[in-house]
């Protein structure tokens, strides 16, 4: 009799424990093969020719010099002015790094040489790369319909009444910068054709999405495309939505050369062409009542997502403001289009909102924690901020926080800040999983998902093992190949919640079959059997049972097979979290050091505690980078990126890392919710507020570079002197 109860166990054996990453040994030994490491017989190397100009018309492309170069097997024009579909606008390159042509040669060095030999004539056009110029109308109009696209204004409540109820109002502008994903493994692909069938190894967050992309763009059936990604070196959103021009160029070069082609981008191409987090700015007028309720907000917001892409973000973020108005503008500039980046919009909305919160709290002389609690939506399982703020404050030593401005005489000032976050992270199907149990006791769980480095492979084994009473290393997860089935793209922290239910269902069904095969030998009813501690036995009676290996001997030559898919009830959505940060600021040099961060975070049922905690560490450090270091700098005159590398595009190193404590809350009754994104939302704001608490001055823009900190201090001093 089939067991139709797939609910999560009341007392799990493996779920929620600290399981070591299954692919750890492969990664630490270098055995793990990433797309960058794939080698195929006769493989060529591809290289893309990119526009050096932020805006230009391609007049002509001559690939013939490249075709005569040593080792060159294929060359193609990607943006062909002689063969335009539709209007002449198609021959325009819209950003530095826009794709124009490509080559494939026997060695990477030959491919680089040949790419240099391709002759491209450009008609350089006026460009816009400064957001303020685009907004003010002083930039040349580059984009059809204008460089600025206003969104529909949003209105709630009665703004006028709200401001009338306010005892204090503040007016300020907050902003965050553009940053790039900077995945350590660049975007790239190895393509190999067999007739009209394509096999593509690609560094992607969605093997099935990539399959659809390739098929559609190359006009071949999806069934003719196999996509493989066993290991990938980070995506953070930039490898989620499409295979990109670089993927299609690789496939076309491989077709033209009739040989496998590997095309991995270099670091400069990564910064220029593979996406970014849009900037976000808010000019606000906001009112607060004498007892600390925010009564009204009037916000004018804008941001740039590059050439023709949106730059949305939530404003205000999380807090309840009854009377509000918002107008938003997407600003287009000649830079690569944005792609989703770890919690799209939320880190920006968090910074823009949270800095404002502390400025308001000071107006009414309230503690920032209490002020936040006063303005939060009601507590709920997916909105636990009140509890987390109180619990975190107690653990962090928030009571020792001094009022705004460290009054000690030392030039090294200390401060604390706090910030909260939310994220969806729900599951969806189809996300089928296939379970096999063989007579030798081997267990395979097979599904078409992929592991970005988040630990998905380990999660597959954890859920399977828990359901079968085994240890995770007794399960073989098979993922990362479209031959294993369809599964959603890994984006929006949805993977855990999408795949765990199907895995659970498949494992439980397979176990039911095993119980039916074992029960006659034990002379018991299959329904009385359980799988626990590596045995199939009568519940609480180990004597009436068999070891896993002996039980599986009853299976026969054909393995047990069972399938499951996502279903409601085993996952849910929306997380909540709070973070606290402590910093020191040297007011003579402007250098900010983060000393401590505390994370209080939930993600529903904790599946794999060790890897979930790692997501929190990673989220905090990513957000610390956003707060202090990262900045895509475009030269205001030439539109060129000034720092398309990793020595001037700054990222934290070991010496920049604070002590990080993670308090992961388990909510087993909610089922699985994703955790990749929420922990990276709020650290930047908490750090910025700790800096404000330390120096007594609000830095309203990121990143908090020494120069910006010193400039803000100097500005404040000048204002103080004027007043005196």
């Amino acid at each position, binding site marked *: 009799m089939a067991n139709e109860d797939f609910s999560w166990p009341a007392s799990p054996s493996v779920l929620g424990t600290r399981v*070591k*990453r299954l692919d750890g*040994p492969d990664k630490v030994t270098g055995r793990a093969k990433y797309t960058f490491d794939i080698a195929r017989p006769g493989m060529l190397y591809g290289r893309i020719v990119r526009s050096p100009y932020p805006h230009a018309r391609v007049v002509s492309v001559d690939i013939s010099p490249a075709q005569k170069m040593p080792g060159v097997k294929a060359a193609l024009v990607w943006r062909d002015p002689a063969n335009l579909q539709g209007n002449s606008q198609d021959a325009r390159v819209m950003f530095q790094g826009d794709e124009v042509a490509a080559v494939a040669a026997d060695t990477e060095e030959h491919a680089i040489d040949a790419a240099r030999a391709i002759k491209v004539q450009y008609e350089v056009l006026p460009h816009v790369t400064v957001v303020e110029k685009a907004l003010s109308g002083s930039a040349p109009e580059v984009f059809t319909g204008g460089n600025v696209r206003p969104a529909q204004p949003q209105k709630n409540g009665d703004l006028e009444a709200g401001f009338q109820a306010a005892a204090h109002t503040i007016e300020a502008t907050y902003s965050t910068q553009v940053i790039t994903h900077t*995945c350590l493994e660049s975007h790239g692909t190895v393509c190999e054709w067999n007739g009209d069938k394509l096999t593509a190894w690609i560094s992607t967050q969605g093997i099935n999405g990539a399959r659809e992309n390739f098929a559609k763009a190359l006009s071949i059936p999806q069934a003719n495309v196999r996509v493989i990604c066993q290991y990938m070196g*980070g995506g953070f959103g930039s490898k989620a939505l499409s295979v990109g021009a670089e993927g299609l160029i690789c496939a076309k070069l491989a077709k033209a050369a009739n040989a496998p082609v590997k095309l991995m981008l270099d670091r400069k191409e990564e910064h220029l062409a593979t996406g970014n987090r849009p900037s976000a700015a808010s000019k606000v007028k906001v009112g607060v009542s004498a007892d600390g309720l925010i009564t009204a907000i009037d916000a004018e917001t804008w941001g740039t997502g590059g050439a023709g892409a949106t730059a949305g973000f939530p404003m205000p973020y999380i807090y309840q403001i009854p009377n509000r108005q918002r107008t938003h503008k997407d600003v287009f500039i000649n830079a690569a289009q944005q792609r989703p980046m770890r919690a799209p919009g939320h880190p920006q909305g968090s910074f823009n909102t949270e800095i404002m919160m502390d400025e308001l709290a000071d107006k009414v002389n309230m503690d920032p924690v209490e002020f936040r609690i006063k303005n939060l939506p009601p507590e709920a399982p997916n909105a636990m901020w009140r509890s987390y703020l109180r619990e975190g404050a107690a653990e962090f030593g928030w009571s020792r926080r001094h009022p705004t401005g460290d009054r000690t005489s030392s030039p090294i000032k200390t401060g604390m800040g706090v910030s909260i976050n939310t994220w969806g992270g729900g599951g969806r199907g189809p996300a089928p999983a296939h379970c096999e149990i063989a007579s030798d006791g081997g267990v395979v769980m097979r599904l078409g998902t992929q592991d970005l480095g988040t630990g998905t492979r380990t999660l597959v084994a954890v859920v399977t093992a828990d359901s079968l009473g085994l240890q995770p290393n007794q399960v073989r997860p098979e993922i990362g190949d479209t031959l294993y089935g369809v599964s959603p793209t890994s984006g929006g922290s949805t993977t855990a919640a999408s795949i765990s239910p199907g895995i659970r269902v498949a494992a439980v069904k397979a176990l039911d079959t095993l119980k039916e095969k074992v029960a006659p030998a034990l002379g018991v009813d299959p329904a009385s059997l359980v799988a626990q501690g590596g045995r199939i036995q009568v519940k609480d009676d180990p004597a009436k049972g068999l070891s896993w290996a002996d039980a599986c001997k009853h299976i026969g030559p054909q393995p047990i097979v069972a399938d499951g898919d996502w279903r409601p009830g085993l996952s849910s959505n929306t997380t909540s979290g709070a973070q606290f940060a402590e910093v020191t600021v040297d007011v003579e040099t402007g250098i900010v050091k983060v000393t401590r961060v505390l994370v209080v975070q939930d993600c529903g049922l904790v599946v794999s505690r060790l890897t979930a905690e*790692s997501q929190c560490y990673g989220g905090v*450090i990513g957000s610390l980078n956003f707060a202090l270091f990262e900045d895509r700098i475009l030269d205001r005159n030439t539109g060129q990126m000034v720092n398309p590398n990793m*020595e001037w595009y700054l990222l934290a*190193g070991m010496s920049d*890392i604070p002590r990080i404590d993670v308090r992961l809350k388990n909510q087993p009754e909610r089922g699985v919710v994703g955790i990749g994104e929420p922990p990276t939302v709020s650290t930047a704001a908490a750090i910025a507020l700790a800096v404000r608490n330390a120096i007594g001055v609000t830095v309203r823009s990121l990143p908090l570079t020494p120069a910006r900190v010193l400039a803000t201090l100097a500005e404040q001093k000048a204002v103080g002197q004027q007043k005196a």
Partner: protein
Amino acid sequence: MATNDKPTTGMNVNRRNFLKSAGVAGLAETIVTHGDAAAQTGPTPVGPGETPVRLNVNGKNIDLMIEPRVTLLDALRTRANLTGNKRGCDRGACGACTMLVDGHTVYSCSTLAIEVQGKQIRTVDGLANGSELHPVQQAFCDKDALMCGFCTPGFIVASVGLLEKHPNPTPEQIKKGLDGNICRCGTFARIFEAVSSVKGAPRG
């Protein structure tokens, strides 16, 4: 990544020692003699075409025909199937390519293959003894000091280099020793934990 120690092999002569030992009077003569010797036995120019290069990697000699411009990293990754160490930035900033050359950590993306002939090169591929992980590799697994794993080979080699030089490093030495490597997933806290846990353990 600091490699300030004196080289352990090769000519241990620097400019200051040379001037001291030669003395001012003998200087001109010594230089002339040296110049003559170089003209007869010095290296002949190579390239730009392919040239034979022998590399000693993880205790084995590898013979390659490569252009002189090929880096140590690319020579091993694309010509010798040693893909453990990674290319992240290709200009000595991220550290994913970190290898040990005569015991010193180097950015192999910024080191030419022809320049390290005759030296002992160690990559992440050679650290484990069969299925037995090097203690640093084991510690990274135990502490979950990796996520996507792309930076991991560089961090492991840098950590091995650090621990061979300083078997019981202070927290400050660990931080400084690994400051030449970047992890984009943000595993630093656990890498620090992992390397700290190996302190004093026997190492091969």
